[in-house]
């Protein structure tokens, strides 16, 4: 079909989050505005899904309220999400831990900005630890999806909806201010109707919604457990589930990686877009370099990185922070390749030439003995 006939629209990443959620049949949104993700709530308010699909949109009084509304609505088996940016997501950590403890589905969109503290409102990727390792207490993990385009922002809302119910773990969509604020050509998904009460009753027998009480016992949700043995049993059951997620849900993408690849860039989100151009520039200059982009940050593509690091010289980990994902990349290499950091922080974002310069520095350091002069330059 001719593209001109397709319904392509020009939208911001944040706007697509909202529009895609409506179309994927989400039942509710609870959130509090914060730059750079306020367009999510704004778009929902403008599109009024409560008049069409029946989706609930509620501006809560704070991020604490939002996450606990998510917790409550999630308990009933409804598909719900919230969105915020770095300091707002920091406030949500307790709720995410409680949701994990009760194995409650819910989607949290995190549009990162420069930190720590209130930081800046410019784009940042310093919330990798916050999303992947969590700021809440206890033995829990959350699936983390990392979109790198406006189109993927929407796609991730569909993927997150599936994963959060499949595994009964909260799913975090970790984006950044740049993907949230930039506009690209997008094809929106078709409308999926929201699940009916009967469907929820069939699909979520664990939910505390009163559906089917004639045929089952009361469901009870609590993260509090007085008996340590029972608590350990619950933790072990969750850990088994996490191992299964690690085995089944890893997703990543390779760019210009082939048998001859000597150097690797690992980057996600906006950094992967910037790095893609840096890879193009370096390849043009004759460098054998490719990129691995994790599309899921947890589970992390450990195996793929481990296998690649057997045969490559070194890895450049590009992220817009002072180095967080780099630790996971280092672990994944199992000591087989040296990993270097590239990136800016506090709201500054690398340009492709910054990445190229960092690559040159890495290559000089790594291969000072036998680096052929002018190898990367035409």
């Amino acid at each position: 079909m001719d593209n001109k006939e397709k319904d392509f629209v020009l939208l911001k990443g944040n706007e697509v989050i909202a529009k895609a959620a409506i179309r994927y049949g989400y039942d509710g949104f609870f959130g509090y505005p914060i730059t750079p993700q306020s367009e999510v709530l704004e778009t929902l308010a403008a599109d009024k899904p409560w008049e069409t699909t029946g989706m609930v949109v509620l501006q809560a009084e704070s991020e604490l309220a939002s996450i606990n509304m998510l917790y409550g609505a999630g308990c009933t088996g409804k598909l719900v999400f919230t969105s915020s940016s770095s300091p707002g997501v920091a406030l949500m950590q307790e709720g995410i831990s409680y949701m994990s403890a009760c194995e409650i589905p819910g989607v949290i969109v995190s549009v990162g900005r420069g930190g720590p503290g209130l930081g800046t409102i410019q784009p940042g990727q310093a919330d990798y630890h916050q999303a992947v390792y969590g700021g809440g207490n206890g033995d829990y993990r959350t699936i983390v999806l990392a979109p790198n385009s406006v189109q993927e922002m929407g796609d991730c809302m569909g993927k997150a909806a599936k994963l959060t119910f499949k595994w009964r773990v909260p799913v975090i969509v970790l984006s950044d201010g740049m993907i949230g604020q930039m506009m690209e050509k997008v094809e929106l998904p078709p409308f999926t109707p929201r699940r009916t009460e009967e469907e929820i009753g069939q699909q979520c027998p664990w939910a505390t919604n009163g559906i089917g009480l004639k045929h089952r016992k009361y469901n009870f949700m609590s993260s509090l457990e007085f008996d340590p043995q029972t608590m350990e049993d619950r933790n072990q059951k969750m850990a088994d589930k996490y191992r299964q997620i690690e085995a089944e849900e890893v997703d990543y993408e390779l760019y210009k990686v082939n048998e001859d690849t000597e150097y690797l860039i690992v980057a996600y989100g906006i950094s992967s877009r910037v790095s893609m151009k840096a890879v193009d520039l370096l390849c043009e200059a004759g460098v054998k370099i490719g990129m691995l982009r994790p599309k899921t940050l947890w589970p992390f593509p450990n195996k793929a990185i481990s296998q690649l690091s057997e045969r490559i010289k070194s890895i450049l980990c590009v992220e817009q922070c002072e180095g967080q994902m780099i630790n996971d990349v280092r672990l994944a290499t199992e000591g087989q390749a040296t990993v270097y950091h590239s990136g800016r922080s506090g709201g500054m974002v690398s340009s492709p030439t910054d990445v190229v310069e960092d690559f040159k520095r890495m290559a000089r350091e790594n291969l000072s003995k036998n680096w052929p002069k002018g190898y990367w330059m035409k």
Partner: protein
Amino acid sequence: MTEEIIISGFGGQGVLSMGKILAYAGIMEDKQVSWMPAYGPEQRGGTANVTVIVSDDMISSPIVSHYDTAIVLNQPSLEKFEPQVKPGGTIIYDGHSIIQPPKRDDIYIYRIDAMEEAARTGNSKVFNMLVLGGFLKVRPIATVEDVVRGLHKALPERHHKLIPMNEEAIRRGMKIIRKMN
């Protein structure tokens, strides 16, 4: 074809919407587009800029350090972006807003007196469309028809009655742009 453009000026000059309309026109031409604003607490009178990339191929980085074309609508923008234009690239500036014009001799320099034209016709709102017309004259990456179709898509229906006025401004902008070197 890939055209990497920076549009920069004061907030309120219509910099971001000009970029958006250009991106929509790119979509109408079946191209890939990206629109990346420098967002922040900018208001009318502050600085605003947007990077627009229009390409036949997939766009990798929405951020670039060098541009094919810089459209500069105030002096600080010129000073910031003149060194970042690729050799052989283009600068378009508004004659009224720029006191010290660009000096480089390895780029094409164009002047458009859009501010004056807008004041003369008593319609300051079409300033950005005059500039857009000038740009499309020297870098014909989309036709006026594409822009008009893009406007129909970009604007809510209640504003469609303003499209002919904008189209006229684009065509006028094409006439008043002048080559300076």
